[in-house]
């Protein structure tokens, strides 16, 4: 049998492009990060400009660092390592280019739309549906390119890095698609098909696994290639790779509900989220061990090589965050940590430490190879390392302290059993010094990245006139392949008499069977999909089908047209970035905010607005808490009402005209989602909105406020805020028979919402009380 030898060379031009954009977007994302950090320390940095206010910029920061910086870093690493691990150039140069330019176009679209307030308001899934479709298309292009490359490989078995890439590609596609199913109401507006509890569940299934499959698995893949390369050492344990890969992929998916402890999410889901997070600890640490123990015998190199320094710190932070994650998922710990800066510190130790440093290490390793010259300055790289490390430490120490301070202050009762810090702003003022330390830490980290930029530029300047393109040789894979027999089982060798099952188990745990899978990438991919989908469905199906998860509350009715418009403003301004709408069932919260939130209260909430962070107080029971005028004045100048508040001012809401004409379209989209607006409700939507707006504006004048607000955005937002959380205290509707001809489509969630429907619509629901 003659073996055909192929000659081929790798495409490094695409890697150069992705690497450059990693740096560019990294700087942009971190710069926005420093700005939002400044805004929290001193609200004057919001500049009273809509497109620079915290609520719009925070999503820009998160999206930029996750999808732009990390995204490009991943693609650079994947394109570089995949070709070499599979001994073949990428499947298609055209697809590589489409992938690159498509991804950059998406980032630009995000950078334009988010500051304009165009958002879906789901964290890390803020981008609106046209951009989401583009993401899906570009991701499929990437997938085809990657799987095409795998299909054309000249390496029989696929290496562990490729396993992680496969898991990333298929899982991110699933997560992205199912969390972004929306009904559009125009080009830049849409509403998710899920509401309330279900929407929250889907969002955090997505949110948690985006961390898992975008910020963990692809970077583990990158670690498995670049770390042994840089250290020139074999990987510590192949068996550990197998076990930790499969357990990570399977267990990760379940853990999403730990973002929703103590919320209206059913307790069983929250329990599963916690337990699977605990089980995730060791699978995550498997990656850390394989990283750190691979360095055995190479630690002397770490002292001298900035690349390895970055890797060691990255893997250490990975270990730290993946210990902290399970810790935070424990319900009683979460009680203290949730909604506080603790979470922010946690994600930044992961993002700055693990993701950032791994990417930097990779780039420093790549630069001389991509530009075929020496790195311009090793000293500068060392400086970057130390500046970055100090930056991370300043950032996280300050923000851990802030998180603990805040959490403890929120929960503190005095000796007589009443809230010790009844005023929310007291708990904010205490954090300001720590916020300044964060600004310093973030700036140090950003400065380090700029040093990388300088090194990058100077190294690039020393590149050869034309890049050398080495030609490689490898035999083409033969059609036939006989796997080597598995090594004999020690159990069998010992001659012990045990049940057949024991042999099977023994074989399973020895993982020798896995070798066969590694040459069958299709089987392998199907197995990954099965692991991910099965785990997802175990939680998704009950969440959607069991009615008792969301007990119906008869007095909870759909929003009035004006309130809907106000809700859109709330979403667009990104209020959810600082305010939760979810009072947890603990006395420290019900004392502060009012009755705890019930699942049935959110059945018309497309999308849910529970939030994940309380930079300001919870708003679920803010309805009726203050007079209308309070909201008007507070939006115009929060510090005139609450001294020390760090909320941005929103003066434009008092002057920007309210878009009444789109209300009908918005209502129609909601009806398509099952909200029972009748034809006449929709036809009269604009008129009803104007009437309620006029009423509210008149009340504001009566209370001594400015005139002429009836057609301004502020009335809609105020109407929405005054409605929040008030439905459960309304009197039960008197059993109106099902005369409601206005029921458009019976609701899956609240099929017998007949009574609720009777109250719905134009004049029926009086918003402000």
């Amino acid at each position, binding site marked *: 049998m003659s073996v055909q030898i192929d000659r081929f060379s790798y495409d490094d031009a695409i890697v150069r492009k992705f690497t450059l954009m990693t740096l560019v977007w990294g700087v942009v994302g971190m710069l926005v990060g420093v700005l939002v950090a400044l805004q929290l320390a001193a609200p004057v940095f919001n500049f009273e400009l809509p497109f620079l206010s915290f609520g719009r910029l925070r999503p820009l920061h998160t999206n930029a660092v996750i999808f732009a910086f990390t995204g490009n870093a991943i693609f650079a690493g994947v394109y570089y390592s995949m070709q070499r691990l599979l001994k073949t150039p990428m499947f298609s140069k055209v697809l590589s280019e489409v992938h690159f330019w498509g991804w950059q176009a998406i980032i630009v679209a995000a950078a334009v739309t988010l500051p304009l307030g165009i958002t879906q308001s789901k964290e890390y899934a803020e981008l609106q549906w046209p951009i989401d479709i583009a993401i899906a298309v570009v991701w499929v292009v990437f997938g085809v390119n990657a799987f095409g490359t795998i299909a054309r490989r000249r390496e029989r078995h696929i*290496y562990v890095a490729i396993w992680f890439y496969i898991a990333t590609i298929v899982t991110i596609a699933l997560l992205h698609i199912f969390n972004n199913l929306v009904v559009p109401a125009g080009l830049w507006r849409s509403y998710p098909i899920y509401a309330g509890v279900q929407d929250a569940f889907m969002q955090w299934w997505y949110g948690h696994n985006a961390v898992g499959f975008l910020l963990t698995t692809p970077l583990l893949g990158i670690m498995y290639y670049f770390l042994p390369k840089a250290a020139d050492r074999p*990987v510590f*344990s192949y*068996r550990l790779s197998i076990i930790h890969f499969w357990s990570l992929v399977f267990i990760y998916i379940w853990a999403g509900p730990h973002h929703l402890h103590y919320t209206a999410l059913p307790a069983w889901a929250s329990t599963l989220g916690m337990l699977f997070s605990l089980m995730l600890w060791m699978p995550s640490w498997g990656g850390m061990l394989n990283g750190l123990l691979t360095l055995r015998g190479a630690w002397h190199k770490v002292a001298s090589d900035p690349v390895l320094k970055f890797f060691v710190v990255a893997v250490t932070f990975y270990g730290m965050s993946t210990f902290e994650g399970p810790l935070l998922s424990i319900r009683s710990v979460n009680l203290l940590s949730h909604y506080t800066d603790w979470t922010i510190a946690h994600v930044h130790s992961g993002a700055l430490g693990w993701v950032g440093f791994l990417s930097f290490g990779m780039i420093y390793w790549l630069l001389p190879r991509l530009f075929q010259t020496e790195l311009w300055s090793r000293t500068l790289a060392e400086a970057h390392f130390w500046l970055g490390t100090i930056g991370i430490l300043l950032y996280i120490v300050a923000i851990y302290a802030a998180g603990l301070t805040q959490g403890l202050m929120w929960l503190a009762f005095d000796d007589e059993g009443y809230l010790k810090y009844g005023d929310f702003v007291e708990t904010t003022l205490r954090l300001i010094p720590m916020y300044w330390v964060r600004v310093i830490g973030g700036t140090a980290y950003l400065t380090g990245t700029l040093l990388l930029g300088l090194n990058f530029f100077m190294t690039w300047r020393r590149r050869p006139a034309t890049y050398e393109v080495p030609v490689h040789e490898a035999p083409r894979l033969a059609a036939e392949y006989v796997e080597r027999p598995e090594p004999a089982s020690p159990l069998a060798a010992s001659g012990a008499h045990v049940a057949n099952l024991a042999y099977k188990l023994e074989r399973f745990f020895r993982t020798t069977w896995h070798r066969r899978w590694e040459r069958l990438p299709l089987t392998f991919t199907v197995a990954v999909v099965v692991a991910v989908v099965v785990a997802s469905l175990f939680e998704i199906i009950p969440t959607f089908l069991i009615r008792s998860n969301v007990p119906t509350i008869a007095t909870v009715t759909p929003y009035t047209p004006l309130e809907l418009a106000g809700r859109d403003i709330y979403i667009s301004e990104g209020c959810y970035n600082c305010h939760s709408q979810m009072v947890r*069932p603990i*006395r420290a919260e019900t004392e502060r905010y009012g009755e705890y939130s019930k699942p049935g209260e959110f059945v018309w909430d497309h999308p849910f607005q529970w939030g994940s962070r309380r930079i300001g107080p919870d708003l679920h029971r803010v309805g009726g808490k203050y007079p209308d005028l309070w909201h008007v004045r507070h939006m115009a100048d929060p510090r005139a009402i609450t001294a020390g508040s760090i909320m941005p001012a929103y003066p434009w809401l008092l002057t920007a005209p309210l878009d009444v004409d789109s209300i009908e379209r918005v209502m129609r989209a909601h009806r398509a989602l099952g909200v029972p607006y009748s034809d006449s409700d929709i036809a009269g939507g604009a008129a009803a909105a104007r009437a309620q707006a006029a009423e509210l504006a008149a009340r504001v004048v009566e209370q001594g406020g400015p005139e002429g607000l009836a057609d301004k955005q502020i009335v809609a937002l105020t109407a929405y805020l005054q409605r929040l959380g008030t439905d459960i205290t309304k009197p039960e509707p008197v059993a109106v028979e099902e005369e409601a001809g206005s029921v458009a489509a019976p609701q899956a969630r609240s099929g017998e919402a007949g009574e609720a429907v009777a109250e719905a619509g134009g004049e029926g629901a009086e918003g402000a009380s």
Partner: protein
Amino acid sequence: MSDERTGPEAPQSDHLLDHAYDGIQEYDNPLPRWWLALFWITIVFTPLYILYFHFGGGMLPNERYDQEMIAFYDRQAEELLAMGEIREATLAELMADPSMMNGGKKIFQGKCATCHGMFGEGGIGPNLTDEHWLHGPQLMDIYRTVRDGVTDKGMLAWERQLRPAELMAVSAYAGSLLGSQPPNTKPPQGERAPRAAPEAVAPAPAAEPEPPATEAAPAAS
């Protein structure tokens, strides 16, 4: 981690597998034992936790909350009973108690000042320092307004947010602002009505305050 060859995971076998990917080789090291043990512990813990919290004696957050609230309302009901009937004179006495006034002031500045101003000069809500009153000049009038609110005018019913003693303290404090002359006062609203001395007021505490226990407890269910 100084000398890697002495630790427990030091390469007992360090048996290199006979494959390499772009030059990367792999050892066939066994899983670290402590790692495997912890993994198993977290797995075994799962059914035990579920059994205890969902089918056994463990309390889930809502149940724990209900218990906490019942205990709290019991205590509050006792406190209320111990205080006896609230009348004009009770509140007037509080005005002479510096510690109550300090407490009242703190509550006022935390809760009331956003609408009535730091010194009661008025703002979104009416001025509390002049002799003009929308809901009556007596301390009991203030107390009732604070307790029940005037919801259509934007005044909250504070009964559910403040404990009984706090309600009284803040009402007495608000009453004590009469005649103080802070800067930037809001123009008078309502009728001009001087406040009568406590003895002159008929002891008629209308709308007996219900113990909150009966009202709020069902909401906790």
